[in-house]
């Protein structure tokens, strides 16, 4: 009872909500880049929202199921197919023995998530299944997935399905919880005041391009250099997912899931938590437009996202029960 990697992707890892409580040891949380997407994708197959899941970048792995399973794809759209037939994202799908799942081209987004009903067997390290690539621990042997890896399912999919072919279940998760604005909302950081007036304006008036030097640790942004009114050093201090640091060359880096626990560059801004998902689905070449907001708005948006997720979870649970008990 497993999911076999028959061709490896560029960077496919097992991730969950992250590993907390160890940052004082220099151990960063890791976890999924898009924590909203892993929740939605897990809910579609009836898992708890933070269940371990496979995160994939393009080109992604090709998988073969050695037994029937209930799966879902969420996050990015990489034009997935099963046995060559296109399958949609954000739907629960019943797959059969020997079905082959693959991804053809990146249509939108940067990271696709594959959830399997009942969960995957994975290594737990310090209370998380997330792959910590530097520590070589957690997830699947602490590394990215490779050809011939075999991921075991925690539970067999026991519902008997009549058809031979895979089945796309007829409902789709609604992920429209906020407006479609492409803007990324930010809060000023402790060193925001170090930027010159002109650089502050440039920060929100112009857009930034995500460069090729971007990965799970952080995104380097390209634009005219920003200027600081002081060169006073910042003594190393904690940073977070979404922290935007000003580099000595005037460039910016946005810290992502594999960010370091502490940093010594000025923290000029922070992307609000509710927009981490949007950010995580951006890739090299994409443009980012920042807009300043306030603490209250940031909090309200995350609460709104959370309320939406709770409704979605209830809806998914209800639909799955209805479908499999009829």
């Amino acid at each position, binding site marked *: 009872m497993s999911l076999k990697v028959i061709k490896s992707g560029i960077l496919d890892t097992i991730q969950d909500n992250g590993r*907390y*409580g*160890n*940052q*004082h*040891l*220099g*151990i*960063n949380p890791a976890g999924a880049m898009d924590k909203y997407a892993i929740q939605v994708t897990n809910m579609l197959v009836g898992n708890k929202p933070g269940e371990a899941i496979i995160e994939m970048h393009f080109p992604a792995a090709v998988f073969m199921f050695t037994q029937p399973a209930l799966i879902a794809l969420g996050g990015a759209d990489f034009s997935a197919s099963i046995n060559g037939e296109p399958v949609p994202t954000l739907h629960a799908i019943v797959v059969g023995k020997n079905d082959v799942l693959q991804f053809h081209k990146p249509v939108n987004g940067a990271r696709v998530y594959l959830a399997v009903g009942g969960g995957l067997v994975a290594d737990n*390290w*310090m209370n998380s299944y997330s792959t*910590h690539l*530097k*520590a*070589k*621990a957690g997830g699947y042997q*602490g590394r990215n997935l490779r050809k011939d890896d075999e991921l075991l399912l925690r539970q067999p999919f026991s519902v008997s399905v009549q058809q031979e072919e895979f089945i796309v279940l007829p409902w789709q998760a609604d992920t429209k919880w906020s407006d479609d604005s492409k803007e990324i909302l930010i*809060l000023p*950081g*402790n060193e925001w005041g170090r930027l010159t007036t002109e650089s502050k304006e440039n920060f929100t008036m112009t857009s930034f391009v995500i460069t090729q030097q971007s990965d799970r640790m952080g995104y380097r942004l390209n634009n005219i250099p920003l200027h600081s009114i002081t060169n*006073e*050093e*910042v*003594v*190393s*201090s*904690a*940073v*977070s997912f*979404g*922290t935007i640091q000003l580099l000595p060359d005037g460039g910016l880096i946005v810290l992502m899931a594999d960010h*370091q*626990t*502490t*940093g010594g560059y000025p*923290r000029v801004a*922070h*992307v*609000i*938590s509710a927009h981490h998902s949007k950010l995580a689905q951006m890739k090299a070449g994409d443009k980012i437009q920042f807009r300043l907001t306030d*603490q*209250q708005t*940031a*909090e309200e948006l*995350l*609460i709104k996202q*959370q309320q939406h997720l709770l409704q979605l979870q209830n809806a998914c649970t209800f639909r799955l029960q209805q479908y499999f008990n009829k």
Partner: protein
Amino acid sequence: MVSSNGFEMHSSIIRYRIFPLGDSAITIDFGNCIDETLNKEVIRRFNQLQQQPFPGMIEAVPAYSSLTIHYDMVALRKKGTDALTIFQWVEQQLLERLEQPVEHSATKERYMKISVCYEKDFAPDIEQLAAIKNISVEEVIQFHTSKTYKVYMLGFLPGFTYMGEVDEKIAIPRKPQPVNIVAGSVGIAGKQTGIYPLASPGGWQIIGRTPLKLFDAKRDEPTLLRVGDLVQFYPVTKKEFEEIKITEL
């Protein structure tokens, strides 16, 4: 001052400021500098929070002169806080705590001895450091091993320790560009000294290597050193290095 029950009381006269680190974390900043007194306050407050976390707290991260608390905004909203924002509620919790001096038992700091081989093969930057500082390689080793260092914080990599402070005679700025550094490398950056627990790009000037495993994911406590530890380096030969390394596997 020492109270009658043998506990050292710490008066909270240290000044601080509090600022949000995004929308889900808060930082108490005791001063943007490397200072042993401030760092002691950070560690005391950190230990207290570890023992008595406030509701909604995810974790606390001590640094040189600041303490950051990551919190769960959604969990706190469910609690129905009266404050205008969740940040303000968390800030209030911290202010109340900061009003209270931290009582801390006179627990002894751990004293850790770390073997280091300063021989050329393991110390790519030691000769240049000696030349720039106009001292001999032997003197670099002597200065580095003659002091006891405090682990001010961990960060950057799992188990990477920021220790201080080295003698001015061997203090040297980090390299302008990072290079690939071998696990166990012992380096200097300004007046800081530290050990790379894992192979990584880095800019510290490397003057030796320890055979000890500073980080091992398989251990219950994966990092060898903790914040607040006192560390003394002692020189070993390449042969001794290899012997110790075998016992570490």
